[in-house]
């Protein structure tokens, strides 16, 4: 790791100003550090200054119920999300996703803000010897390399998958993020906040360099909504999703009236399969429907040389999630 200065700030404005200070990205915000520090150790991120967000008094932390929904402060740890009783009641999907993410030690340190902003685990990206496209280089080594963990959707130029388990759950819950920059605050639906990396913006979010994430707002869910997060991993725990599915369904008399399906581990950003959701609405809940929906959800998937198995896996998880959620009993 390269030497850096540790900085504490007292106001949000001061922090944003500092973050936007110069042309190169050498000032970075530090939350739990579970992602940033590992990137620094590999010299993938090389800040000269780190601002300690955990010491920034105005940065929100904790879970508050609102009239309809809930607000989660960016510094809330993943453990809090996993164990908060109100959250478990209102948004079991999110608590479930938190519980299968990372490890207890990591969840104690990691913040929800950091989780949404973590960088890909692509093993070329994380390798110090490779300067891949996402890091500013010219080519994506995964495209013709060991891409068994890589994307089925939205690939090119980058085929990395978004590593977060919370993001797909939050996307399914139609969360909005509250951002703060030098010019003030803005509210951005998570669906827009995540955007496929492109030539001029080689990152997975719309967050500006001088912006802070403050809160995540969750709208209310109609009564009778059911949800689940299923995650396939290489081992039982402590692994990123090979494929994950965040599913929300509301039934009225065996007819599906509302459905949301977000896949994780399949695209550079959490991947909502809207067309499949729409096809579900009005359909009768049964095996045949779900098999069709699973096919439909993966219809546009494009496999690379080593990741076709993920298509099968994703279909199975979609079918399973829908079956579980509509099972009477």
């Amino acid at each position, binding site marked *: 790791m390269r030497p850096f200065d540790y900085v504490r700030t007292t106001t949000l404005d001061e922090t944003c100003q500092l973050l936007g200070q110069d042309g190169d990205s050498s000032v970075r915000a530090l939350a739990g550090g579970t992602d940033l520090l590992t990137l620094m150790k590999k010299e993938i991120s090389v800040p000269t200054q780190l601002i300690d967000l955990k010491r920034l008094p105005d940065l929100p932390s904790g879970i508050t119920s609102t009239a309809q929904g809930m607000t989660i402060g960016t510094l809330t740890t993943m453990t809090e999300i996993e164990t908060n009783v109100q959250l478990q009641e209102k948004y079991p999907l999110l608590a479930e996703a938190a519980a299968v993410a990372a490890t207890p030690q990591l969840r104690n340190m990691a913040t929800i803000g950091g989780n949404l902003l973590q960088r890909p685990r692509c093993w070329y990206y994380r390798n110090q010897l490779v300067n891949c496209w996402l890091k500013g280089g010219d080519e994506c080594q995964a495209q013709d390399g060991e891409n068994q963990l890589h994307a089925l959707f939205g690939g090119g130029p980058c085929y990395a998958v978004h590593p977060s388990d919370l993001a797909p759950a939050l996307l399914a819950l139609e969360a909005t993020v509250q951002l703060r920059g030098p010019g003030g605050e803005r509210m951005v639906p998570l669906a827009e906040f995540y955007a496929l990396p492109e030539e001029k913006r080689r990152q997975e979010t719309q967050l500006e360099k001088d912006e802070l994430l403050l809160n995540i707002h969750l709208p209310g869910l109609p009564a009778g909504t059911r949800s689940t997060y299923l995650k396939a991993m290489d081992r039982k725990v402590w692994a990123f999703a090979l494929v994950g599915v965040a599913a929300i369904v509301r039934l009225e008399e065996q007819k599906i009236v509302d459905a949301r399906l977000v896949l994780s581990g399949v695209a550079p950003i959490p991947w909502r399969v809207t067309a499949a959701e729409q096809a579900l609405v009005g359909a009768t809940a049964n095996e045949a429907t779900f098999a069709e929906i699973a096919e439909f959800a993966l219809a546009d998937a494009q496999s690379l040389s080593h990741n076709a*198995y993920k298509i*099968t896996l994703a279909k199975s998880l979609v079918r399973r999630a829908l079956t579980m959620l509509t099972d009477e009993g």
Partner: protein
Amino acid sequence: MPIQHIKVLRNGTDEEELKVVETTGLPTWDADTKFTVVGRPQSRLEGLEKVTGRARYSYDVRLSGQLYAAVLRSPYPHARIRHIDTTKAEQLPGVHAILSSANAPDDITWYEEKSKLFDKTLRFIGDEVAAVAAESEEFAQDALRLIEVAYEPLPFVIEVEAALQPDAPRVHDKGNRVDEPTIYERGNAAAGLREADVVIEQTYTTQTAVHNSLEPHGCTAFWEGDQLTLWESTQGIFETREQVAEKLGLPEHHVRVVKEHMGGGFGSKQVPWKQTVIAALLSKQSGHPVQLMLDREAENLAAGNRNATVQRVRLGAKRDGTLTAILADIQVVVGAYMVGGEASEVNGMYERLYRCPNVRTEQIGVYINAGPCVAFRAPGHVEAAFALEAAMDELARALQLDPLTLRNRNYSEIDQKKEKPLSMPNALQVCYERATAAFGWQTYQRPAPTGPKRRGIGIAAHEWGGSGQPPAYAWIKLNGDGTVDVVTGTQDIGTGARTGLAQVAAEVLGLPIEQISVHLGDTAKGPYSPTSAGSSTQASVGPAVFAAAVEAKRQLLEVAAKLLEEEPERLEIRDGVVMVEGEPENKLTVAEVTGRLAPHMIIGQGARGPNAKDKTIRTFGAQCVEVEVDVETGEITVLRVVAAHDCGRIINPTMVDSQVFGGITQGVGFALTEERIVDEKRGLVLNANLEEYKIPTVADIPQMTNVPVNLPDLAANPTGVKGIGEPPLVPTAPAIANAVFDAIGVRLRHAPLSRRQLLAALATQAESIDKSAPPHTQEGQS
């Protein structure tokens, strides 16, 4: 009374000639011996030290003025150093010493003389380029960045088949074959195949697995005058001493190697690596103690691994299951170098495990531009078992025989290679019986499938060495207060050697274990003991401690006899008290005897005697596994493993359990998740860390049962002990693969059994999932 004399002097290379000590007249612990300490669970003597964090590992050494070293490693899989300039690094404050090909001694060679300590040709990503010693790890890292190297990248090869092509890039000048193939044949294998009613022909592959010991490799080196001390994480303090002395041109008594506690080695620390000598030289150059510990990445790149294999197997059998032929063509991917030490004998199990008159094996080693392999817990056998034991399962299916029946039908009671009897001809039989009985193999009722989940069971067997051997020495010192110091130059590599040795001494001396201390892990303080490898520490050093204790006891009873005015033959020691047979009143405590003697003391010396020559001593084992496979998601869950392993006499059941559970755990990793992933186009190791190199977590570990098999083997040594360190890992992976087949009718022949492989196989063989379908037909069935 033990008599020790030198029988044959060490001359030449014949194994038999190397045994220099004959120990006769020792009592033996036969099957009827009554024990008070041996055979009972005993928690580890160093346990408290470890769980309270006080135990000192190599990383914990802190000496005054100590520097920290870091190594610059090759970023190319194959390259030549055109130019190296360390000037800027030298000028960095806090930097004390730098070594590279520019200034390191040119005459220190490594890897069977194929590389120099700092070679200008680099053959894998991670090969050593330069090293720095500085006042902190951070300074050392900063200095590495300032070293300027001009590399000339060279063509490289990663994939084994490509490496064997005539025009492949050459890892070494002489090409990519390590040597001429090793060929073994007995009978006529081709004819045996022709005789067969059924032939199985399949190719199996096993992956490169990395040891990933919790404690990385490394050492702290310190010179006092011309006396070098190394606190080294090693399985062999004497081996390290010998090699370092040789490389540095030092007399052996000027080198001291210390290893107090160790966080595992699994074979990777049974040979000294370059960093040990580098640390010694940096220390010499700087005049400071230098600590050089590898980080996790280096540990994965450049500190050894289990060689990948490609094994083409052919088995021929009669309708009744009698084997007529076993053939195996084996490619062993050794990486960029051979490190010496134990070679991976993949061929061995094909030649020994089953009775078969016609056997042919051919094994070649292949170089590629990746980190070198080194022995890894049961080297060769883990790889061979994955193929052979799966092939036997395939054969059983083809013959519609129970896999256990097929194994019993081909049971071998002799060492077919040497045409000698086995010391314990029925040991494997006992393992089969105990494992299958405890598992319920014969009575297993497959539960009805629940949804997409299918259950299945599998069995696999193994054989292995582990007899232990001479030389090994130990001293027993009786102190004035009746306590005992056991001194030996072995090391505790994490297996609990101290405790096992203390139990042997306590038993012989009739003392409670609290009165025994074991001192080991220091070449300056204890007599020679061999490297802890080949599951041999208890079986090699235990008998030396036994002999020393017998000798100490003889002396003690001689003194006690004088004090009690009795004949020594009539005396016995029980629970720290010397008693006269049949005269309960006439007694003295051991402490009273030694107290009367003090400050004179009793010293017993013991040596490990030779093994029986007329018999072959092996260890055996079998494991039964139940798995559950989710046919929709490809998830494999290992539900339970029942193991039965022959390790001779069990000194400490708790420690045997530990070895078995640890072995199964590594076996689950080998079977399901552990694999070094290398980008073949770029030579990059993509998962040189513990996030992506996936060892099993506690949630992945099945319910494990170890059924004790306590068969004292007196052909091995008077204590009847054989090894248990390596074997429990061997049968786990094939038993899992066989169980997966049993569950879903899909045969996975490539370790690890990844989801990718399983889901792909399921997609192509979807019809065979249905258990009511006709039995899976074998390709290659004649």
